[in-house]
């Protein structure tokens, strides 16, 4: 049940993201809802769940907008795994911690993305341009992250209450 809901949520976030990027292109530049969700799931549950969510959302993004499978799939799943691992022993109740982790995770995501893009010949620009684009978009993800974290937390809470608790 949980897997099904998360799977559907990833699809919904991917579709919303694609539509919103088209409607409000200039204002949503760099914002990646499925990526933030994978990070939040990594923080709320564990790194394996984040990796799986990242894998599915990256796979969908590659199929929808890519020219081959792997660039987003690897970058999102690996960065979500790293976020999950690094936040294991952190108290994540404060929004600022979530924002910080999402920012760092987004930078890691962009970095892995760039490495794959350069390696596969998809990017040819000079490094200084690439680095500026690696740093700026994560700010957009950081700002929206507390909302997605709250959503993920509530869903987890709901499932724990109705399905996991034994009386």
């Amino acid at each position: 049940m949980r897997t099904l809901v998360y799977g559907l949520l990833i699809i919904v976030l991917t579709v919303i993201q694609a539509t919103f990027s088209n409607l409000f292109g200039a204002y949503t530049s760099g914002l990646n809802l499925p990526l933030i969700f994978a990070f939040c799931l990594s923080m709320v549950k564990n790194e394996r769940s984040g990796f799986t969510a990242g894998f599915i959302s990256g796979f969908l993004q590659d199929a929808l907008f890519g020219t081959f499978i792997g660039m987003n799939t690897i970058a999102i799943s690996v960065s979500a795994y790293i976020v999950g691992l690094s936040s294991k022993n952190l108290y994540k109740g404060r929004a600022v911690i979530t924002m910080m982790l999402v920012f760092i995770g987004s930078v890691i995501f962009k970095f892995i993305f760039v490495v794959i893009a350069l390696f596969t010949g998809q990017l040819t620009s000079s490094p200084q341009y690439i680095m500026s684009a690696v740093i700026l978009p994560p700010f957009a993800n950081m700002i929206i992250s507390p909302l997605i974290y709250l959503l993920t937390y509530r869903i987890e809470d709901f499932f724990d209450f109705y399905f996991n608790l034994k009386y």
Partner: protein
Amino acid sequence: MLVAMISITLQKNDVFRAIENPILTFLSPIQKALSTAGFSIKEKIEFIPQIFQLKEENEALKKQVAELQRYKQNLLEYQRENEDLRKLLGLKEKNLQFDLETAEVIGRDSDDWFNIILIDKGKNQGIDKDMAVITNDGLVGCIISATANTSKVMLITDERSAVSAMLQRTRDNGIVRGSINEVQKGYLEMDFLSKDANIAKGDIVISSGLGGIIPKGIVVGEIVEAQKESHQLTQYAIIKPAADLLKLEWVFVVKSEKGAAQ
């Protein structure tokens, strides 16, 4: 496993198609419905502040109509004169007409560098890879893949895009590329312009048709800045795209070019 996945789908296009097709087929109707609803809401919201400007705009448009009527008369006159001169020279007029397919934009990649949009027409409507995509204002990009009812369009602002183009005024040739430079975001770069090329701000850039994908004569954009390369052998220019690539709702796919002889 992940690296193998990249390697296989990068080299074998049909494997990628086999994965891409069902996902696009499943998601595109949802995407289309959401996009249509989103656009209609956006239009309504945007209309409210416009009401106050409408009166002013109406007056300005009336003046413009009068002016355009005068231009139209002049143009008809020039056209007749042109036809007469062509007949005199024995030239065969090549009246290029495009076979266009209208398509709605239903999705967009959120990435900063790879500018890809999804449109709601595909192979069933006669659309295929390497067809040019335009709007009323100018060039948008070209089709990079098509499924039965959807197609992916790589915008000219994409880092991977390269279009053969020329300056309309001087006929100097160059290559127009997308740029990921934050300063020039949304703008294009025209490289390989001859060092002697006479480039002026406001010059119109059109496609030269040399690449074989984009037909000749489609407006690409307007020069905003020109500079010499550091090695002084060539020049490059910054171009503002003619089409508003951030607000694409409807586009036209150039299915074929019909050459109608006079």
